[in-house]
């Protein structure tokens, strides 16, 4: 399809642009930046912030460039006195209702409103505050906090929650001076449809939406004498942490990450990729067993805690389709306080497990009441761990880790690469690709193929399940069985796939679902900005890391093999079930209706 081209003028220069583009998009592709605080490419154009105004020849008033389409011969002016003055006024109006205590704000130095005020040289805020209603900070969620006072009502969060995730937990309620972002009846986020994915806070231009902080408890554990603090880093961290320290997006920094964690003072530096490999063994066997024994199909992956909460809320009838495997984070926590404690002869009550995750929902996952298998394990052995013991004690995001590295005075860019510790630091390329959409599927297929045929896939690169397409499908021939699989990322795409399953029309054996666009590399705990371009670069980093690994199939991981020999015995064994598997429960948000 050829798109019609239009001849337009921007600031006196002539350009050829495509019909259907907005003035803002046309200016951007001509290399002219138009500031804005509410527009989100492909997701939102609410035109609420009023910052992107430009002058159009012949137009009586200034227009908002995000919602004005270009037309043949249009003459646009982006840098006139009138434009500058209007932008100043509009940003001052936003600041009138915004707190000025930037130093006390988590978003300090990363706030778009703060940066834009500085860029536009707005120093004084001469307008009085007109917003009258005060709302308390909503800290009900284990993952996120909402502070209405800092909200500028751009509604990016509302649009992402709806358009990208189809969760629709929030909407603008009331109007005028009383307007605010609200859940149903202004309940706390934790009592709403919110799945804790944090895609909203990635796009929030202010500190109105923030991830819950846990750095304090991590430092406390590290500083406590006699405490054995182990850290696990998720696959997606190494593909993005560099962005916090001035590296280009897409630079895998595995060795640097391990070195930084060690310098911070963790006693053992482990890799969640180890339990990602383990997940593949358990989940791969679960798939084979369900196919052989005519169990519930399609089997759907369960690593992504936002997706789990989504399924519990919106598709409770399909919970039997979910793999019973815990996520790699939780498998790690359980094993660290059982197998590892026994093997290394460490008192399990002295072990603190810290996770570094690209994800805000992992904070929620670690607090799920059933995630305390280690305590259960020791209770069965006649040993009581302190009350409230959880398998994973603290979960910090990539951003929190970067804060801690800076606080430690570590010069991240100059670190020499180091290795993760044994035994839980040993992993394969299959574990690495867990961080990208399609990665769990690809890792599972590599192992399932080997399990059923006794030999490895000729080409380990299963390109059919890679990419950024919302829903991707593939078939793999294994010994006469045509295994049909699908991959979805972003919950709107997941909903589409689930509705098909709901109607009994799903042709697949196995479905991978990741909550966030691009998979974990695009998680709510990752560095900002997380544009599609940045997400694609991080995915590239993940696959290049996979190709550089000597082992690329989970079942070849020697530490995993040893774990089965010494502790678990075999996949899906009794021990495996009590340690590595879990169950789900429906979430009835509106009981009695």
């Amino acid at each position: 399809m050829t798109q019609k081209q239009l001849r337009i003028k921007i600031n006196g220069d002539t350009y050829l642009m495509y019909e259907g583009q907005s003035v803002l998009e046309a200016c951007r592709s001509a290399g002219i930046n138009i500031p804005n605080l509410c527009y989100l490419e492909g997701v939102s154009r609410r035109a609420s912030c009023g910052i992107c105004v430009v002058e159009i020849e012949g137009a009586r008033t200034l227009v908002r460039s995000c919602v004005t389409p270009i037309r043949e011969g249009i003459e646009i002016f982006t840098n006139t006195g009138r434009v500058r003055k209007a932008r100043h006024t509009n940003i001052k109006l936003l600041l009138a209702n915004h707190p000025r205590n930037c130093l006390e704000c988590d978003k300090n130095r990363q706030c778009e409103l703060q940066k834009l005020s500085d860029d536009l040289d707005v120093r004084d805020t001469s307008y009085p505050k007109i917003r009258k209603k005060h709302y308390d900070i909503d800290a009900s969620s284990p993952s996120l906090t909402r502070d209405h006072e800092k909200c500028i009502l751009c509604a990016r969060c509302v649009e992402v929650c709806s358009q990208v995730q189809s969760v629709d937990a929030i909407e603008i309620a009331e109007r005028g001076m009383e307007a605010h972002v609200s859940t149903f009846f202004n309940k706390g986020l934790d009592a709403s449809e919110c799945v804790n994915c944090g895609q909203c806070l990635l796009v929030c231009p202010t500190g109105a939406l923030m991830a819950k902080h846990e750095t304090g408890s991590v430092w406390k554990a590290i500083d406590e004498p006699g405490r054995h603090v182990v850290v696990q880093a998720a696959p997606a961290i190494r593909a993005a942490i560099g962005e916090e320290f001035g590296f280009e997006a897409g630079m895998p920094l595995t060795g640097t990450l391990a070195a930084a964690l060690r310098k911070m003072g963790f006693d053992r530096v482990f890799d969640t990729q180890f339990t990602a490999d383990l997940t593949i063994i358990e989940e791969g066997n679960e798939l084979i067993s369900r196919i052989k024994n005519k169990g519930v199909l399609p089997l759907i992956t369960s690593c992504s805690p936002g997706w789990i909460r989504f399924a519990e809320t919106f598709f409770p009838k399909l919970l039997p389709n979910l793999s019973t495997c815990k996520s790699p984070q939780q498998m790690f926590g359980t094993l660290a306080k059982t197998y590892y404690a026994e093997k290394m002869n460490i008192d399990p009550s002295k072990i603190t497990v810290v996770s570094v995750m690209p994800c805000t929902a992992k904070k929620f996952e670690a607090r799920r009441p059933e995630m305390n298998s280690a305590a259960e394990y020791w209770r069965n052995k006649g040993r009581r761990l302190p009350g409230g013991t959880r398998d994973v004690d603290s979960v910090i995001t990539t951003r929190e880790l970067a804060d801690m590295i800076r606080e430690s005075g570590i010069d991240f860019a100059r670190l020499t690469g180091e290795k993760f510790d044994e035994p839980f630091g040993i992993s394969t390329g299959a574990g690495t690709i867990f961080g990208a959409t399609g990665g769990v599927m690809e890792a599972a297929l590599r192992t399932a193929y080997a399990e059923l045929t006794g030999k490895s896939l000729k080409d380990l690169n299963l390109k059919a399940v890679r990419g950024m397409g919302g829903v991707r499908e593939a078939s793999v021939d294994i010994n006469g069985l045509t295994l049909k699989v699908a991959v979805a990322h972003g919950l709107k795409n997941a909903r589409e796939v689930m509705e098909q399953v709901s109607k009994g029309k799903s042709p697949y054996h196995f479905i991978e679902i990741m909550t966030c666009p691009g998979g974990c590399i695009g998680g709510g705990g990752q560095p900002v900005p997380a544009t599609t371009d940045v997400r694609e670069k991080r995915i590239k980093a993940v696959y290049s890391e996979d190709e550089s690994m000597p082992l690329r199939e989970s079942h070849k991981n020697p530490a995993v093999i040893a774990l089965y020999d010494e502790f678990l015995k075999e996949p899906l064994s009794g021990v495996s079930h009590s340690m590595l598997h879990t169950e789900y429960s429906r979430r009835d948000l509106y009981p009695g209706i």
Partner: protein
Amino acid sequence: MKAALKKEIDGIIKSYDGTHGSLLGILEEIQKRNPHNYLPEKTLAYTAKKTGIPPAKVYGVVTFYSFFSLIPQGKHCISICRGTACHTKGSRKLLDYLRSSFEFEGDTGGDAKLFITTKDRYLTVRTVACFGQCALAPVIEVDGKIYGSVTVEELKKILKKLKGSRQ
């Protein structure tokens, strides 16, 4: 939630037959049929479920339009215009008269976005910014009917005519 109420809501939703943009009409009817002329939380949650419109969006719509109420209203409802024209023509006096004649619950004074109801839920009084009928100032609305050029004397007559009047 009672089965009868669910059935009633089902019927209302069905009468709109999934027409796009029908939420306003549906909510209006549901509120009208509520004995206290309001939209309880469970009713809205049920409506959201049945229409497939996310609960937060339903809440956004309900709180946007001042017509909808989330708290029980009195048997009768009087809206008093507090726009500039009505104010200069004495709408404050009408409000003062109502306040002196009835005992309202939770009346914290003032007259912007007022929404007060008597203890026995006989009467709700609210203020609106403007009816757009300034030529008839001062304007009030009583149980959906508009009255223009209202004086305190006339208001007394209107109150007397209300069903179950105690004036």
